[in-house]
């Protein structure tokens, strides 16, 4: 299936959870937040939330800012 992750298309197997996606990007241990289709999915739900074809995912973290 294809999903959009941080603005770019990615191919992943069906049944991919948010935890799987974070693992694929080596972000499992990094403090970050995930939105799916503009809805925040909190960390306790990352294992159980299965991504669907066409989902738009944002993975964000903290950067320098004022």
């Amino acid at each position, binding site marked *: 299936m294809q999903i959009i992750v941080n603005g770019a298309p990615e191919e992943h197997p069906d049944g991919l959870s948010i935890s799987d996606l974070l693992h694929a990007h080596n972000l499992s241990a990094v403090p*970050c937040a995930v939105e799916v289709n503009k809805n925040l999915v909190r960390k306790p739900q990352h294992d159980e939330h299965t991504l669907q074809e066409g989902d738009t995912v944002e993975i*964000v973290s*903290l950067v320098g*800012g*004022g």
Partner: protein
Amino acid sequence: MTTTETAAVEPMSLAGRTFNSRLFVGTGKYPDHATMTAALDASGAEVITVAVRRERLYNEQGESLLDAIDTSRYTILPNTAGCFDPEDAVRVSRLGREILEQMGNPGASWVKLEVLGDKKTLLPDPTGTLEACKTLVADGFQVLCYSSDDPIAALRLKEAGAASVMPAGSPIGSGQGILNPANIVLILDLLKEHDPTYPVIVDAGVGTASDVTLAMELGADGVLLNTGIAHAQDPVRMAHAMRHALDAGLLAYRSGRIAKRKYASASSPWEGVIAHIPGE
């Protein structure tokens, strides 16, 4: 007041917590992380601001901000910089909270709310800011709210439940200092009229140390700045300057300055003058 040290560390209350430093500094625009961490240290700040951005998924280079900062030392205040409508600002606020909750940082329920009007001036959108402020307060956030220096706009944000209203001295990153001190004074009068401990923090536009001093001499509770330190030729030295400038302004404000006079007032006594005084 017997020592300057006692006065300089007079703490402030903000969003239910107490801080010894009234200087709030950003973490953006530094040439490198080592300079940033040294400048943060020199500033004495206990609260530092950060932005929420897409994780770099590919071609990541260097250490991340969170690797560079001792996060246990600071209250991390996530901002909504880059948001131009209230919906996006609320989204970003919740994302920031999610990250800081994972880190166990006390800034998790805090947000520096910015809803900007346009990219060139980065001035706040007053109606969008008010709308987002109401939503976030209802969602349990402690909203530290960036505002224009319009006194009524600032008052409406306080009435909406902002934990602090933070009027701009001048546009973000402009270094123009406090362009309208009279408006800052009106904001302080209005917001503190029946609530003298309500925190008002001058945010944005600081170019150099005297701007910080002026903000405190006007009666502000604190100053938030980023570019004035980060883009100084020597950021660490400037961070020291900002810290001392804040203490100087606070001490001067608490001391009660003399009234301005049209004519001179001699500091040496006239009595016993042996010289000829014109007109006498």
